[in-house]
């Protein structure tokens, strides 16, 4: 077998060049994979645009397409309110968490004070604790603070993240210390160095972290499920789950609701794809 010619080395690096038949087979396999991955989205969109009866009889034609399901969904479920709740909570947590983590990461990485490394090790150790362990006490804490069923319950616990602190600390340690020293010579305070030297230098990692947090908070389900009770406080995933409980097999409405719920995050994903992927690889490599 002429195996050596199957992959002649190319100058640019990793991707190997395949022969034409192998390339064709690969394209077909990848296309099939895409069909499998996209089918649920396609079904969602299709059913959301059809009357339920037409879908049940599998009548697929252009003439049955309608936007009525969307009108009906917005009529029976306050999706507008869910949107506002989700946007408010997600934006607050993302900005707050990034700032708080950045401040702490700056101190952990670049200031010298007693107990710094010990405290950081304690932070790291808590990464092992699974979410279900803190779920119940956090619910009790929120309740005793009088925050049950409020925005505070959705936002405040999310403001603190060991993961974000860790990721930023790793990055900040890589920035040359001479920059701080030079700024300090010029009489800059630590706060000023953080804001005017470190933060501007860490734009990409902050953006990656922010979009990553945004995605996580937007899709969060278990925590809101525990601390939210009233309909007007629901976020999108919560509202959607309640919608399923209410309209078990009204597939046309459920699919319209799902499309409404997914649209913002999918648009953000498609526009900012490279940041999502960067976030994964960044964390996958342990923050390096």
């Amino acid at each position, binding site marked *: 077998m002429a195996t050596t010619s199957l992959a002649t080395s190319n100058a640019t690096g990793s991707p190997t060049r395949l022969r034409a038949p192998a390339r064709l087979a690969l394209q077909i396999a990848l296309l099939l994979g895409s069909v499998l991955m996209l089918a649920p989205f396609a079904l969602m969109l299709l059913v959301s645009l059809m009357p339920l009866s037409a879908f049940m009889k599998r009548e697929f034609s252009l003439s049955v397409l309608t936007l009525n399901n969307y009108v009906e969904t917005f009529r029976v479920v306050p999706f507008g309110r869910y949107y506002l709740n989700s946007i408010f909570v997600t934006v607050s947590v993302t900005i707050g968490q990034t700032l708080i983590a950045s401040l702490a990461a700056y101190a952990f990485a670049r200031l010298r004070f007693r107990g710094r490394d010990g405290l950081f090790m304690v932070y790291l150790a808590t990464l092992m604790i699974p979410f279900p362990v803190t779920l119940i006490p956090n619910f009790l804490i929120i309740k005793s603070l009088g925050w049950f069923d409020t925005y505070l319950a959705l936002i405040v616990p999310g403001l603190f993240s060991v993961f974000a602190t860790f990721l930023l600390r790793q990055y900040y340690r890589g920035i040359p210390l001479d920059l701080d020293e030079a700024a300090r010579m010029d009489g800059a305070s630590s706060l000023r160095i953080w804001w005017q030297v470190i933060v501007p230098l860490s734009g990409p990692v902050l953006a990656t972290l922010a979009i990553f947090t945004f995605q996580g908070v937007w899709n969060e389900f278990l925590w809101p499920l525990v601390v939210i009770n009233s309909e007007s406080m629901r976020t999108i995933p919560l509202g959607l789950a309640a919608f399923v409980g209410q309209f078990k097999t009204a597939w046309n409405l459920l699919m319209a609701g799902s499309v409404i719920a997914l649209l913002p995050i*999918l648009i953000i994903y498609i526009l900012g794809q490279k940041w999502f992927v960067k976030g994964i690889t960044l964390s996958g490599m342990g923050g390096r």
Partner: protein
Amino acid sequence: MVALLFCFHLMATSDRSLTPASPQPKRGRFGWRPDQQWEGYLFILPSFLGFFVFIALAVVISLGISFSDWGLTGWRGFAGLTNYQQMLRDPVFWQAFWNTAFYIVIIVPSQLILGLLMAVALNQAIRGRSFYRLIYFMPVVTTIVAGAIVFRLLLANNGPVNDLIRWVNSLLGLSIPVPNWLGSSQFSKWAVVILTLWKNTGFTMVVYLAALQGVPQELYDAASVDGASAWRRFLNVTVPLISPTTFFLFVFQTIGAFQLFTEPFVMTQGGPANSSLSVVQYIYLAAFRDIRMNKASAMAWFLFLFIFTFTYLQNRLQQRWVYYETD
């Protein structure tokens, strides 16, 4: 949840990632500096408050509740190991436990293999790579609740998947059984597995893709010169060089699968007859439906102990099969 899962990965790799990205200049002044003492505390204060209340305090409370007689009104007395004993005697807990074990055993290897296949395919010089990557990763950012709803429809008794099976049957004269995915205890777990694979495999793919791009081309070239076939090169060059990534994904996804919640919660409600109930789902139900927070806390700590032991053992075992480049 995804962000949360990442934390567990960091724990797994922390010994490597704790080393600084670039060595800090040493200027002969180690230790703390008095002028930065209070500044340091002030910078950390907001983060520390959150840490103290929602993690440190929470852990203590949780541990306390798990050893208490805890009712609707709160603390009623010390209960010793009663909650743990009740948990171990509860058949539903064991059912949830074995269901979760099933999820882990099926989901983790499938996801590793499928993800690696996809990554290897996308690491070739072919047209449309970024398009495929966009598509394969799309379910990862999708709200799980919406994903679960669509799969409820896809896998419904008269849903499109069963339509397809019936169509293949009539076309080829076969008699593949048409499963009642969501309504039978035999298939409900598989429904959860299918949803999870669709949702998460793209993540595995992206992590593997980054690892594959880090394998030096010279090694492939050298192997080719020695007459190694493409398959041999994959087995003897690629697989060992990406084994640290495989290790990370293995631990990370197992911990994730231990904590499966939303998928069965929305798609099957854990049913029928608890056949798809996961441990975290049972913890949730015990705490917030049955208001048995003491028992739920005991289960949460049992889960923690299990995850901890698993991760510890994996870390010990990794030297047997994970290849780390030595400088």
